[in-house]
């Protein structure tokens, strides 16, 4: 949690409800009102997925839902833009491999 800003010279950091989301099975503390991307970055997670062609790691780029670099599998749905998706308690987030969920990638190998 080294990346959460606790004190700020100008901004008031409000107290909000906290709950867990799950990242590749691991519980992470999330703050109500934040995006999945913010939660992951707060915990030092930078690589959100691996690309289809070169299997390169990708994370945040534009941060406003335009570039789609930050897509992950969220609650079973692939290609979810984590920088514009708000967290909810118990959300299940997984590293996305390629263009679709892990399960679909398995079918591609048949």
């Amino acid at each position, binding site marked *: 949690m080294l990346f959460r800003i606790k*004190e700020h010279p*100008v901004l008031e950091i409000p107290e909000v409800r906290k709950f867990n989301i799950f990242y590749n099975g691991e519980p992470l503390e999330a703050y109500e009102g934040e995006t999945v991307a913010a939660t992951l970055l707060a915990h030092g997670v930078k690589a959100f997925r691996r690309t289809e062609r070169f299997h390169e790691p990708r994370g945040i780029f534009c941060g*406003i839902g335009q570039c789609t*670099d930050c897509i992950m599998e969220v609650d079973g749905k692939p290609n979810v833009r984590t920088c514009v998706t708000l967290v909810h308690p118990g959300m299940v987030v997984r590293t996305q491999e390629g263009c679709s969920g892990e399960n679909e990638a398995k079918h591609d190998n048949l």
Partner: protein
Amino acid sequence: MITYDVVVVGAGPAGLSASIEAAKSGCSVLLLDENPRPGGQLYKQIHKFFGMKEHYAGSRGFEIADLLFARAGEAGVKVSLNTKVWGIFPDGSITASGPEGSIRYKASLIILATGASENALSFPGSTLPGIITAGAAQTFANVYHVLPGKEIVMVGSGNVGLIVSYQLMQAGADVKMIVEAMPEVSGYLVHAGKVRRMGVPILLSHTIVRAVGTDHLEAVDIAELDEKMQPVPGKTERVPCDTVCISVGFSPRLDLADVGKCRIVYEPVLGGMLPWHNENMQTSMDRILIAGDLSGVEEASTALDEGRMAGTYAAYKLGRMKKEEFETEKAAIMKRLDILRSGPFGSRRKEAKKSVWEDRNFGT
């Protein structure tokens, strides 16, 4: 299905101002925005604005966003947030996807205030996690109170690069340096001064030539550039960092204007391709007006006044405002815009805007 007098796309300073002016004159106004909160770029601005009271000098960006939103509500503007406009048709239909599903709205006039988006930069390794736009860094730091990283290199010394560097330092990050490809700082010297006093060096005529790392960014190679903007051989230094912020300008988000068949012209001073428009913010399509960064990348203050101009003209065009009142309002707005577009930076934008209005760029 009701036809709104005006549908405004984008609830940033331009869209909010346009909605308020149109509604105040008795137009039925629907304001749509894809984000969960209104304010556009304003909601992540934490510094105090300066200038005139009409531009909310002394207030912070997010305060201005809240104020404008409240005023829009008071004026009777209907708002639909989390609503992405995806289509625009010659009969005045606008199709959008929102919390209530997919809806087609009808408007007599449409005001597009979709703003501008940050430009990308490419170099070997530029897709590594940790390389983000300055705007993204600003959103994480100022809205979600999360540092995107601890050791940051900023690319670009325009106002956004300078201000975001300052804000990241305020938030507790270490901005190791700002690299600027040109031989001089692109932004206001007042911002450059602030950032230098915080200990952030600005390296002019320098750029990133590669980024390295395995699972995420670990370092960048920074090269000095010669007069032809080419890396000087042997003058490359490796700088360890976990984050690079890219701030190399904005481009108007003209997709809707383009599919709406508005004529697009080229004006590099204002961000490149943008919809042609005149002083009244009228595009080449009779039903479509524009305002704010979409009409040329400038500032929040110009967006506010251009929004007022578009909203006022819309009311006049629809017969909700008498000619005399319109001319008076327009004169006041144009006078303020003229003042905003002064000084070494402003006058270039003034010339560029005039060039667009007077349509000197035939053939683009």
